[in-house]
């Protein structure tokens, strides 16, 4: 019986420019894309992750079904032709896929190595997939494992504490523009997690006032309360722009929400005081040409990455330690995966049965006095027969071709029922 293959396809910030990622990012949530993904033939289990920096599909297929092309087609849709996306796309199989997933979960593949957001995003993506019953025994196990790998990396290395987040990069830049952040005003557009993180850093560095503008005022109020700030509606945006100095935009809006033409007339009222826009949304919220205005500085996620590069060396050491952990765990998982094949499970089961028979015989035989050698042989035979007969049906079931596509689940259940995990 052919074994399971794990396949991981995706694009990330390393080899795909923001313009392309923007087109691929899922703005409508996970449900529809997961459904569409389910239409592709040959997928046993599938899972989808979409963040600002990456879109990845993780699937398990039975045997050598070739789904790569279909998956790539799904990922890029009409945005790019195969010739165009070839240089962006990466595709990993089995060990490499496992390794990559662990790297992502442990935040070693992040734009900002060590940032903790990715784990939350991974868990959320997994929740959708598992709720929609898209994942099965292999991906369930694999993703849970990736969470624990991330935790292990976090507790055993300094990567988290030395993590320099996007907000850190933003602060470096803000200091080059404003000198000190003392008494600078911050406007958050969108009340997401990332905005919160950025605001925390800015306030920590002396920023005075936090204003939150959001589509739903309630969320804005909640976030504003945390910083003793104010909440406003999105329609008051332009008015607020006259007062603030630093703007962090992270809405989920599908298009640009603030144009150069909106900001240009404001600069006169601001008496040309500098404005620093940080656009961490994908797709972008802010018109890239804002940067052309005098005294206006606009940075999107990719730009911030360049700043982060400046203090990368310190973190590299911890990253090496962390990737050792990932290597180790990936290897362990590979062994588990290999164990999922039917034959080794059968062997393991038979071995276990034989072992039980042998142990019981060793305990019972000395207590039986006066048995002849022939009688002893009979007892041994009987024990062996009981084990074989008892295991016969389960083994037949496991070998049966009837429900082939569920073999992975069967094997997994089997291994749990008979407690074969520890033996491998």
């Amino acid at each position, binding site marked *: 019986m052919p074994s399971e293959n794990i396949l991981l396809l995706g694009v990330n910030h390393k080899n795909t420019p923001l313009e392309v990622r923007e087109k691929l990012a899922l703005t409508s949530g996970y449900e529809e894309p997961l459904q569409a993904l389910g239409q592709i033939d040959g997928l046993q289990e599938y899972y989808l992750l979409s963040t600002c920096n990456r879109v990845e599909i993780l699937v398990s297929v039975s045997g050598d079904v070739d789904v790569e092309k279909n998956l790539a087609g799904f990922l890029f849709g009409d945005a790019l032709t195969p010739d165009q996306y070839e240089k962006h796309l990466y595709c990993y199989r089995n060990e490499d896929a496992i390794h990559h997933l662990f790297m992502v979960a442990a935040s070693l593949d992040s734009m900002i190595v060590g940032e903790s957001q990715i784990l939350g995003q991974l868990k959320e993506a997994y929740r959708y997939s598992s709720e929609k019953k898209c994942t099965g025994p292999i991906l369930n196990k694999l993703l849970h494992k990736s969470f624990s790998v991330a935790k292990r990396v976090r507790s055993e290395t300094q990567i988290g504490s030395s993590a320099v987040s996007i907000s850190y990069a933003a602060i470096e*830049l803000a*200091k*080059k*523009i*404003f*000198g*000190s952040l003392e008494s600078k005003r911050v406007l958050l557009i969108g009340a997401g997690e990332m905005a919160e993180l950025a605001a925390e850093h800015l306030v920590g560095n002396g920023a005075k006032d936090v204003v939150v503008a959001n589509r739903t005022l309630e969320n804005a109020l909640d976030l504003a309360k945390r910083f003793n700030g104010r909440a406003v509606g999105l329609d008051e945006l332009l008015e607020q722009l006259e007062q603030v100095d630093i703007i962090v935009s992270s809405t989920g809006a599908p298009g640009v929400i603030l144009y150069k033409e909106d900001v240009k007339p404001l600069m*006169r009222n*601001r*008496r*040309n*005081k*500098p404005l620093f826009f940080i656009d961490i949304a994908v797709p972008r919220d802010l018109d890239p040409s804002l*940067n052309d205005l*005098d*005294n206006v*500085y606009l*940075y999107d996620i990719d*730009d911030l990455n*360049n*700043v982060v*590069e*400046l203090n990368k060396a310190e973190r590299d050491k911890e990253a090496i330690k962390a990737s050792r952990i990932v290597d180790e765990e990936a290897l362990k998982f590979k062994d588990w995966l290999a164990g999922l094949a039917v034959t080794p499970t059968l062997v393991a089961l038979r071995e276990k049965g034989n072992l039980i028979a042998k142990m019981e015989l060793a305990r019972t035989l000395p207590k039986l006095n006066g048995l002849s050698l022939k009688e002893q042989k009979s007892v041994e035979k009987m024990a062996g027969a009981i084990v074989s007969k008892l295991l016969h049906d389960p083994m037949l079931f496991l070998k049966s071709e009837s429900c082939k596509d569920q073999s992975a689940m069967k094997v997994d259940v089997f291994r749990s029922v008979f407690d074969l995990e520890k033996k491998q």
Partner: protein
Amino acid sequence: MLSEINYLLFNSVLVVSFVASAVYLVFFFSQREELRKIARLIFVCSGVLQSLYIVSRYVIAGHTPITSQHEAVVFFAWSVTWAYLSFHWRYSVKNFGTFVSMLVLIMLLIAATVSRQFHPLAPALQSLWLPVHAGFAVMAYGFLALAFCGAIMYLLQEHELKSKKFGFFFSRLPSLDSLDQLNNHCLTAGFALLTLGIITGSVWARQAWGTYWHWDPKETWSLITWFLYAAQIHLRFTLGWRGKRAAVMSIVGFSAVIFTLWGVNFFLGGVHSYAQ
């Protein structure tokens, strides 16, 4: 004897200023803090030597040494040096010293190429107004030169920030805000001194020649310079002109200063011409 000392003094000013610039430049590349301290010390020495040189010329000539091309440029360098050394922005504006010391060195090198001869002062210029008028003007130029250095640094840093390629200058140059403030402060001080220079000059002209204003080329160009800076200060107050535009204006203004100082004498002549 005195003139030999004078000669030696100028050469030592050149050497010390060169060393100061060189150490500042090494510091700029390596960013080692101890080098900055050494460079500043050498630059202070250069400032002291420049003062001594000017005093020695005063003693020899018997009047304020600002009447020849050479003297005017040395005076200019001296005022830039001391405007830099005596104010707080040498602390707040990172790596400012490198740029200022380079500018001073360039001025001194120019001074070295022209004639260092002493010239007798024309009777019309023998007045207490000479040091007052020329002193204000040259001090004004000192501050305006600092504004010019700050403007260059501003444009470099703003280019780094706008282009988002964080190269050599990004970490080495101070924040835009501190450079803009520097520009603002130096301009205000420079403009006030320039105004005083023009007023004292016109009062002196009334005494020496009977009219306040001659439309002598140098006067005209001083007035043009004055208007350029006045416009910039006005725009900053009314429209909040700052940042890149202010920096460009500072550079334009300083070009006018340079032209007033040299260009006028080369191309236009007039009563302010240095003794030939």
